[in-house]
Structures are given as structure tokens and as C-alpha cells.
């Protein structure tokens, strides 16, 4: 289907706006054209989406949506031309920008912000919808978990034809299962946590309010649950990860059990949460009828997406950067670090811009304590550096080991100074702190800016 001429003109003009914004050095220009289009002509997004001959798929979750959709993109790369909002611009405007920029794409692959999902669903009408998990995150912005869950429920009901790809291990999401849904989850009680974590959210039955019994709790409240009162339980799994091996910071491996057969998957990314991401990506790819060997090949090719987990060489030292943005995600970052080699020097960065959450109370719900034993120096930085320092001080880290350096750049330099030559400095930044730190490192010539690496 060809674009009506005025829309084509709009699209061309808006694409140049993005390029201009990038040239002017005003960030990646990743959402500017979409914002303009959204303002000028909201209905245009629907027209652009309808042009995609193989339709669109959406990925939403509190944690892991960027990594999961990047995995799906890699799996699809050899066979499909994909329009993918790879830079993480995941509001309606980001989806619109991607639609504008990717002329000639056959399939739309969009990660979508949890709160923006109903609007994007309404505009894009996806053929498949992947829902990964719901954790408490930025309560000042999203409101309570139940509210987001209720909106998702409505969005799902408005899509009777859409193939649902659901993480059955999350009670709120498992509860959305219907005939034809592709439900995935972990099936390896050896990897279960001994007890529910503090950051577990949906621990009471979504139907009757009784605390769930967990046969296995894997990440936060994700696991194999059953309500002893009304019987609400994890739905049967169509796809499962079994025989999981976690190899510290070096990666993970598991058996991917699917209706099309079992296969072995090796990941270059560490941690149980990345097993979830890979399993989710495999499930969505399967829903798109990618053969099993195409899925495993794609996952093997996959390399870390910006900042979620990456190593950057800086002179004779290395930076290991893990994004932290909410309790559940931060807990997994901590667990992964400790299972590798617990860092001796860490720079932890807490910003309170809107994208980080203006309410910083969530740091008190993170289990940072496993890091403390091995930590010789902590540099607390960001706009709320002192608050972060308090979190570690009251967590049990001696105050003489904590330095407060609000400037991110100075904190990075101080961290590098404290790191022996040949050693690794661990950075745990919130979202805007991560972008700022990456820019500092990039300006020094060490790593490409993120929109350059986006396909």
C-alpha cells in the first residue's frame, strides 16, 4: 500500500527533523520526528503501521523489554526487514519515529513502555503481543502495579485476534492466558531462591488475595505459584527453560523446550533474568513461525545491548556497566555481580530525572547487601548521591569506604583511580546516569554513542 501523498511529504519532512536534531548534537533525535507526527496527525501512525505487510509485534515488561526485543531483532535479521525501536524510545512517539525512519520494513518490532501500551495497542493493532513481567517501578510515574495490570488486561481484551505470548511465571500475566496463548516460564527448581525476595510484588493471589504457595520462586515474584485457597496457578507452559547453567558474568545456558522440540541455548549474557529474556524472545519468534534452528542461531549471535550489560575498555582498565532502574532489576544485577566476582570498587549513580523516577525510595527496596562484603570503595554519584550513600551506610558499609561525588564525570574518574591497572570498575547507573556516563566515555573516544550502534 502506498502512502497518500501528504503523509509521504510529512514523513520526509519529519525524517529530516530527526537528522537535524542529531547533527545539532541534541541527543539521538530518536523521538523528535515521532513527537511532531504525533502532534500533527495522530492517525498517521495507524496508516504507517498498516503499511507493514507482515504486521507488528509489541514487547512490554517492566524489566528486560529492550534486551528481549533486541534478541528478537537478531533472530529475525536474516529473514525479515524489521522496523525496530532499538534505541529504547518506547513511547508512542518513539514507535512513530521508527515507523517513519524504516521505509521498506516488512515487520514492526516495538518495545513499548508499560504505561504507553494501551495507546500503542490501539494505534498499531499488533499480530502478536509479548508481555514479560510487571514489577513495581517508578510509582510516581506509573502509579500502582494493579493499575498498570488492569490497563493491560483491557488492552489484551481489545485484541481478540492477537497471539499472546505470556510469561506464565508472573501471576498478573499468567492470569491473561487464553486459548491459543503461548505461555513460557522457567522449569528448573534448582535455580529457585530459598525465599521470596523483598522486591516480590504480586505475592497474593490476583483472584482471591490469599498468599501464593511457591513451588519455586526465581526472580522477585516470578515462579511456579499456586493459590492454596482458590487454586489459581501458573498456567501450563508451552515453552520452558530447563537445565539452566549460570556461568557467573560470562554467560548462561539452558535447554529450550518447545512444542517444536528441544534445543540447547548458549548466551553471552549472564543471569537468570537474561534466561527469561531469551526464553521470551524465543517464544515470540516461534509465534512468528521462525524455525527452531533460526531461533538458537539468533540467540547465539546476540551481543549485549547498550548499557544493560556491557564491558568497555578505557585505557588499561575496563568498565562493566549494568543498568539499575527498579528493585527487581537491580537485585538481578547484584546477584549476577556476586555470582561472578564481587567488585572491589563500584561507582553507583542515582539520578532523579523523570526517566529515572523522581521518587528515589526504591533504592531502599534493593538487596544491595550481598555486594558489601567484597566492596573496598564505593563512589556514590548522581543528583541524589548523598541519599544513595545513606542506603549503603545503613546497609552496613563502613562510612570511610564511601565517597560522595555528585558529578558523574568526576565520580567515573575517581572510580578509575581507585581501580588497579588491568582491573575492572563496576558502574551501576540509573537510566539518565547511564546515558550521561556513556556520553562521557564516548566523548573520550571509547565507545560509540548509542544511536550509532542502533541498526
Amino acid at each position, binding site marked *: 500500500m502506498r502512502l497518500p501523498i501528504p503523509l509521504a511529504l510529512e514523513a520526509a519532512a519529519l525524517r529530516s527533523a530527526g537528522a537535524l536534531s542529531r547533527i545539532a548534537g541534541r541527543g539521538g533525535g530518536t523521538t523528535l520526528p515521532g513527537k511532531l507526527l504525533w502532534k500533527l496527525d495522530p492517525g498517521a501512525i495507524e496508516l504507517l503501521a498498516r503499511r507493514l505487510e507482515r504486521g507488528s509485534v509489541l514487547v512490554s515488561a517492566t524489566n528486560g523489554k529492550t534486551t528481549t526485543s533486541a534478541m528478537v531483532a537478531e533472530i529475525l535479521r536474516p529473514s525479515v526487514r524489521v522496523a525496530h525501536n532499538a534505541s529504547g524510545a518506547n513511547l508512542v512517539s518513539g514507535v512513530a519515529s521508527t515507523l517513519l525512519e524504516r521505509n521498506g520494513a516488512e515487520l514492526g518490532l516495538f518495545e513499548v513502555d508499560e504505561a504507553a501500551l494501551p495507546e500503542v495497542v490501539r494505534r498499531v493493532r499488533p499480530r502478536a503481543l509479548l508481555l514479560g513481567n510487571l514489577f*513495581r517501578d517508578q*510509582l*510516581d510515574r506509573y*502509579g*500502582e*502495579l*494493579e493499575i498498570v495490570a488492569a490497563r493491560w488486561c483491557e488492552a489484551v481484551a481489545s485484541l481478540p485476534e492477537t497471539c499472546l505470548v505470556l510469561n506464565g511465571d508472573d501471576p498478573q500475566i499468567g492470569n491473561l492466558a487464553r486459548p491459543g496463548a503461548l505461555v513460557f516460564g522457567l522449569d528448573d527448581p534448582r535455580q529457585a531462591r530459598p525465599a521470596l525476595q*523483598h522486591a516480590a510484588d504480586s*505475592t*497474593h493471589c490476583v483472584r482471591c*488475595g490469599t*498468599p501464593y504457595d511457591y513451588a519455586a520462586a526465581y526472580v522477585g515474584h516470578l515462579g511456579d505459584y499456586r493459590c492454596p485457597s482458590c487454586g489459581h496457578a501458573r498456567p501450563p507452559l508451552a515453552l520452558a527453560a530447563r537445565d539452566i547453567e549460570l556461568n557467573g558474568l560470562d554467560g548462561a545456558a539452558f535447554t529450550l523446550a518447545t512444542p517444536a522440540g528441544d534445543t540447547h541455548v548458549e548466551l553471552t549474557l549472564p543471569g537468570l533474568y537474561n534466561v527469561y529474556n531469551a526464553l521470551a524472545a524465543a517464544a515470540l519468534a516461534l509465534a512468528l513461525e521462525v524455525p527452531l534452528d533460526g531461533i538458537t542461531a539468533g540467540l547465539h549471535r546476540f551481543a549485549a545491548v547498550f548499557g544493560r550489560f556491557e564491558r568497555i575498555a578505557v585505557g588499561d582498565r575496563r568498565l562493566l556497566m549494568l543498568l539499575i532502574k527498579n528493585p527487581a532489576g537491580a537485585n538481578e544485577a547484584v546477584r549476577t555481580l556476586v555470582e561472578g566476582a564481587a567488585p572491589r570498587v563500584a561507582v553507583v549513580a542515582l539520578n*532523579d530525572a523523570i526517566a529515572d523516577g*523522581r*521518587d*528515589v*525510595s*526504591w*533504592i*531502599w*527496596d534493593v538487596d544491595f547487601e550481598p555486594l558489601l562484603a567484597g566492596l573496598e570503595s564505593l563512589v556514590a554519584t548522581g*543528583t*541524589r548521591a*548523598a*541519599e544513595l*550513600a*545513606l*542506603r549503603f*551506610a*545503613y*546497609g552496613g558499609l563502613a*562510612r570511610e569506604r*564511601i565517597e*560522595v561525588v555528585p558529578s558523574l564525570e568526576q565520580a567515573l574518574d575517581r572510580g578509575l583511580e581507585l581501580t588497579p591497572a588491568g582491573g575492572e570498575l563496576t558502574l551501576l547507573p540509573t537510566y539518565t546516569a547511564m546515558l550521561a556516563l556513556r556520553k562521557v566515555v564516548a566523548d573520550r573516544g571509547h565507545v560509540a554513542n548509542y544511536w550509532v550502534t542502533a541498526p
Partner: protein
Amino acid sequence: MRIVVGHLYPDYLNIYADRGNIAVLAERARVRGHELDVRAIGMHDDVPEVDLFYVGGGQDREQALVAEDLAGKAEVLHAAVADGAAVLAVCGGYQLLGRSYRDLSGAELPGVGLLPLRTVAGKRRMIGDVLLDCAWAGETLAGFENHAGRTSLEAGAEPLGRVVSGFGNDGESGYEGCRAGRVYGTYLHGPLLPRNPWFADRLLMEALAHAGVEVELTPLADELEHAAHTVSAARARARGGR
């Protein structure tokens, strides 16, 4: 000295860093040579002899789940407070300490009645940094609020503080929280105690008094605490919120 803290419903009401408040109380007691003994009091549990009760915040759903059980503990809580036990209640816990809480559907949850106030759920959430002037203590409190409930104090009730910046109890009265003797309720989480150490120490002294020791606590340097308070107070002043 051992200070017994009764943490009410930690499995249900824990949404806003409530354990941060407990950690601050424990550490500030420890460095003064006291020991905090924290006991979880859950659904259907008997209420033990306690020096300080703590009730945190929850989402609407969790709040509704505990309200009835908490109301069933009202008599023993009133007796403990009459005996001099201190109470800190934050957000949802604060609402439940009042006389009643009416949700958006009009359903009424019973309250404990330790604070002379009523709360009605509103449509608009009141979210942002808050700064309070607590003239009664000659101090300020800096925190963060996020609530749709609008709380009205009864005539003669003492607020926790006057709102310098932020919404406070109902976005209109200009006051936040409530105190009655050693019972304190507030919407401020963030959490409250790390960046307001004077308030943590006050609660500890009151809990110690109930345990049988009237002491002044040795002052601590609190440099990080004051730095965090300064940033948080500046956020409130800059953002206003009202």
C-alpha cells in the same frame, strides 16, 4: 537496652522502602549501645509487648487485605499506646490508623482510631517532594508523597507539620500528617528517617522511655544525612507540587 519494634504486616505494607526506616532505627540504636529487636506482626498474629509499632504503606489492594485484621487488633493497640508505646505509621498505614478509609467505590474500610482523622480516596494522586516545618520540634522533615487519599483531621487534632512545599494531607489545608502523644502518622516516605535523623532519634527516645529508660541519645555527626536532607528539601522547594 533492648527496644522491641512491632512491624505490622511487613508482607503486605512495604511498598515505599519501609525497611529503610527500620534499618535506620536499628543502626542508630546500635551505635548508642542499644539493640533493636524487630518482630513481624502478621495477619491473625497476637500483638506482643512492644515499645514502638511501625506500619508501612501498601497499594490499595494490600491495604484492603489487612484493614479488617488491623481493626481487630485495635483494642490491644489502644492499650499499648495508653501504656506509652510509640507508633510510626506511613502512607497506607497512616490512613488505617485513622477512624476510617473510604475507597473510590464508596466502600468503607475500618480504621484503628488511634489518630483523629478520616480519609477519603480521591481521583487525583498527589505526588512529589515535600518539605514540612515541624514548629513543635523546631525541625523540618523532608520526604516524598504519593497518595490519592485525602485525609481530614478532626478539630483540635495536631498535624505533624505545616506544609512548606507539597500537597500534605489533602492538598488544601496546608498541613501534613498527624500526631497524638507518641503516635505519628504521615504520608512522607522516601523513606522518611534516613534523611530526617532527628525524627528517628525522637522515636528511639520515646521507645526507650517505654522500655524504662529516660535518656538523651548521644548526637551523631550525620553529615550524609544532612546532605541528603538538603537535596531533598531543595527538590521540594523547587518543585512545589501544589
